[in-house]
């Protein structure tokens, strides 16, 4: 069974790759390359997989899962300029793809057996654009 917890945060970022020239960055990233940055209302959906516990009838305690996501991700990302304030985005471009990988890496070590198995991280950059990451194995 899959269970999904959704959280939201707001942050600014700029999409420029040091591997590209200024002209290439503007060509690839368009408005998102504006060096002053711009913001989004992001949403993250964390999906875990497991079977309902025979006693509690729950796969995971959603309050506990929410607390982990808030502590390890939302508190760190919310109302920040990702490139300047949240490593590793001082070194890698904070695209939605890289944010999904970073969320996975921040959560995975803390999601012990009682949280089920981490199945997917979905990052909405806008309501119309989102990415899904399933860990390295997928």
């Amino acid at each position, binding site marked *: 069974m899959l269970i999904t917890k959704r959280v939201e945060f707001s942050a600014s970022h700029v*999409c420029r*790759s040091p*591997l*590209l020239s200024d002209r290439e960055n503007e060509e*690839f*990233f*368009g408005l998102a390359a504006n060096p002053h940055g711009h913001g989004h209302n992001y949403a993250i959906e964390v999906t875990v997989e497991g079977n309902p516990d025979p006693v509690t009838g729950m796969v995971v305690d959603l309050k506990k899962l929410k607390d982990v996501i808030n502590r390890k991700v939302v508190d760190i990302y919310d109302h920040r300029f990702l490139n300047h304030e949240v490593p590793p985005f001082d070194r*890698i*471009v904070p*695209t*939605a*793809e*890289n944010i*999904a*990988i970073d969320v996975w890496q921040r959560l995975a070590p803390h999601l012990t057996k009682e949280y089920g198995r981490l199945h997917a991280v979905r990052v909405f950059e806008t*309501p*119309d*654009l*989102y*990415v*899904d*990451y*399933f860990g390295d194995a*997928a």
Partner: protein
Amino acid sequence: MIRVTRKYRFSASHRLHAAVLSDEENRELYGKCDNPYGHGHNYEIAVSARGPLDPRTARVLDPAVLDRLVQEQVLRPFDHRNLNEEIPEFRGSVPTTENLANEIFRRLEAHWKSTFPADGPALEKISIAETPRNIFEVSEIHGQA
């Protein structure tokens, strides 16, 4: 591998009426959807592509490139149109949302290779909501479109 999904919207009218069935059978089968004057929906489509991260841009694809493809192949021909009258593929088939999903997938797949690099993203699936309560998903073309 990472999956990227982008949502788009268009509005169109259609009539569900199968030429091989009698008028009575059509009314029985399709109900209100068989109204000879047609009726409309606000469709929402979600296009999902799966691929590796481009090491230079840290993205699976350029959303602007996908936007152009969907705009040219789907939104421009379908938006504010009568699907039965104005889309050649529906002259001979019923524009159910199943057939519409197949047709949108076919159009995107036909132009995918000329739009994205060979080692880039693959078209994984599309889903189409005829209304917020009726949603159809295809990852390959099913049956007779």
